[in-house]
């Protein structure tokens, strides 16, 4: 039983932090998200080539560095600190998470492309009528020749404007929100019948509404078993949520540190406002929330290799804590910055906006409480 980092993990953290400190300052990021494309392919290239982090969590036999969840955690926490918008979660954690388990030659080749920074992914899994229930899939994939024909609409596909490929959930059997009957498909974003409407998100990323109109894909587009992708979807989204929790920890640390720093410098009534006990205790409560969140991020990552139920329970518990912390720490960071916190010009508001969206990403606090209860309390009741 040991909760400390290895030397390699500490090194990884330091190198990512150094790179981002150097090249991912607030002004550079601001310019990038305001640009027509909204991201910096050259940063992505550096992730692949200079830092080598795109392969950090892939097995060595696939060309990766053989790292695991803790390596992803380390990278994502640093990304949170710098508010990195580039699609690491969609590409490496989710896209890579599916592909490395797909077992097809095409998937293996795409993993190599990911590691090389040549392929980027977005996960088209949300539908408007489904809210946070990923099994509620109305998009269909019908057998057509040796392959499939996909039709349907996906909502708010984060990172889709930057993606070369999409991973799409579609129903091949069953109805409504049955988990059986959901399958996963790899779709080239340029494929005929795929149309997208791209837009920015309030936290500085890009997303798309996507319509699939009789999009034909080959048999090798199928990831995991036909009709039976649900366990794989659960596994990879749990990994994604854990990674998101790590990102949140970076965001939360910056929100807290930024607030402590600001209140030390801001004078009112003849003293720094950090001298007011009420604000001190508020910052202590923020700090406790941050610490508890980091603990839960550790906890979730450690449990990712456990049984499906233990894994899901751990991940949902972490997302509950982190969702709460995002709200409490974010709101109070703005409050303690006063009017300055309301301006677009200061970084703090941008951290707040990211924290706010993380709250709901892959399920709200209520969603994960319900999931946690179904695994922890209902089973034995």
């Amino acid at each position, binding site marked *: 039983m040991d909760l400390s980092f290895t030397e390699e993990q500490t090194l990884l953290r330091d190198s990512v932090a150094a790179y981002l400190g150097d090249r991912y300052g607030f002004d550079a990021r601001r310019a990038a998200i305001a640009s027509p494309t909204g991201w910096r392919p050259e940063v992505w290239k550096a992730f692949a080539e200079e830092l080598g982090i795109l392969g950090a969590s892939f097995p060595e036999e696939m060309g990766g560095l053989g790292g695991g969840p803790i390596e992803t955690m380390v990278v994502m926490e640093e990304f949170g600190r710098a508010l990195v918008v580039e699609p690491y979660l969609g590409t490496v954690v989710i896209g890579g998470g599916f592909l490395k388990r797909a077992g097809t030659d095409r998937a293996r080749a795409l993993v190599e492309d990911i590691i090389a920074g040549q392929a980027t992914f977005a996960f088209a899994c949300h539908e408007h009528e489904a809210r946070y229930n990923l099994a509620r899939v109305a998009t269909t994939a019908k057998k057509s020749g040796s392959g499939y024909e996909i039709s349907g609409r996906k909502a708010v596909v984060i990172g889709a404007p930057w993606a070369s490929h999409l991973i799409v959930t579609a129903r091949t059997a069953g109805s409504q929100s049955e988990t059986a009957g959901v399958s996963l498909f790899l779709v080239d974003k340029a494929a005929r019948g795929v149309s997208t409407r791209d837009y920015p998100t309030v936290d500085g990323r890009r997303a798309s509404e996507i319509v699939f109109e009789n999009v034909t894909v080959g048999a090798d587009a199928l990831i995991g078993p036909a009709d039976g992708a649900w366990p794989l979807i659960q596994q990879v989204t749990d990994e994604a949520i854990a990674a998101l929790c790590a990102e949140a920890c970076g965001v939360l640390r910056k929100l807290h540190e930024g607030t402590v720093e600001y209140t030390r410098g801001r004078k009112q009534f003849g003293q720094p406002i950090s001298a007011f006990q009420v604000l001190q205790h508020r910052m202590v409560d923020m700090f406790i929330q941050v610490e508890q969140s980091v603990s839960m991020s550790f906890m979730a990552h450690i449990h990712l290799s456990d049984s499906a139920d233990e894994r899901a329970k751990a991940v949902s518990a972490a997302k509950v804590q982190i969702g709460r912390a995002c709200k409490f720490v974010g709101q109070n960071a703005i409050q303690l910055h006063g009017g300055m916190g309301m301006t677009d010009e200061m970084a703090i508001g941008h951290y707040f*906006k990211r924290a706010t969206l993380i709250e709901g990403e892959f399920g709200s606090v209520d969603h994960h409480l319900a999931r946690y209860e179904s695994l922890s309390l209902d089973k034995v009741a």
Partner: protein
Amino acid sequence: MDLDFAPEDETFRQEVRAFIAQNYPKALRDKQDKGEEMTKEDYFSWHRILAKKGWATPSWPKEWGGTDWTPTQRYIWSEENARADTLAILPFGVSMLAPVLWTFGTEEQKARFLPGIRDGQVWWCQGYSEPGAGSDLASLKTRAERITGDDGKEYYLVNGQKTWTTLGQFADWGFFLVRTDPDSKPQAGISFLLIDMKTPGITVRPIITLEGGHEVNDVFLDNVKVPVENRIFHENQGWTCAKALLAHERSGIAGVARSKRNLERLREVARTEPADDGGKLLSDPFFKRKVAELEIDLTALEFTELRTLAGESSGKGPGPESSILKIKGTEIQQRLTELALEAAGHYGAPNLRGLGHNFGPVGPEEAHGVAGAYFNTRKTSIYGGSNEIQRNIIAKMVLGL
């Protein structure tokens, strides 16, 4: 102790309701429905209709254009306006400056400035806050020196910077707090000046807030010449005016009627948006509970306001009492936007600001702009004296700590 309305009050309510229905500009309603930004003319259009009817300034003294309504009539007035979701009359002239004018102004000043406010002809902005002075307003640094102009008249030469000037981009005139005696104690050397915003030396610069909106501004004053007759009350005694104004700023701040309307809207959204199980969000026990809790808190706030009006609350005087209303009122406003964002689910994420009207909606219409509204509403616990300051006020003035 009862909540019944007298028959004449019911008649009044019908009159108000009918007037709004018949006279509220359709163009304004359309813009509101589409969530479009309002122009200066938009803001004034409804104001001028009311001014013609004599209803633009109900709380004013009768002689300057007030309506002499009973408290119950005023309550009905605000309820009906909330119900019809009319565009609020801007407070800067009507509720902030006007009481200062009729309390501290000379007869000439009243005659010169009050009609323009009442009739919606002159747009006023506030020049209070400064970059270094937030909740600690009295530490303001903007200087005003007495000089004699080339024309032989007496002026103040004003230099400094104001900030958080709401809708200052539209302003014709502004009321400013400036330091006329740098050597006395912070609150003692302040004067209250009215400044024509077209005076040379004034620069208004937008502040973009975190949701991307342009609502507030920096105002720079560089050797701005202000005639001494534009000063209200005595030199160096502007703080007296400021305090009076701040008390008025907080009244009505509970915003019960508007919050009721927004709660109704939230319930509508929750009745249409999906829950995880495929049902509707308002059938989700936990979302429903949050709505119920908010509704109960709003009821408590409403009755606390009614008790305050009846003089049955435990606070002492309108200042500290309104601090409770400000704290609870803004907390409720914030929770309303928080729940609206939660209700929108994934569709809280899109940021369509700046994409132009041709882009069209993304997701359900009611989700449009909910994140922006949530971000923007964080300001309510900061402005008008932060909620921490309000607690200091209650601790000192009510609890005697």
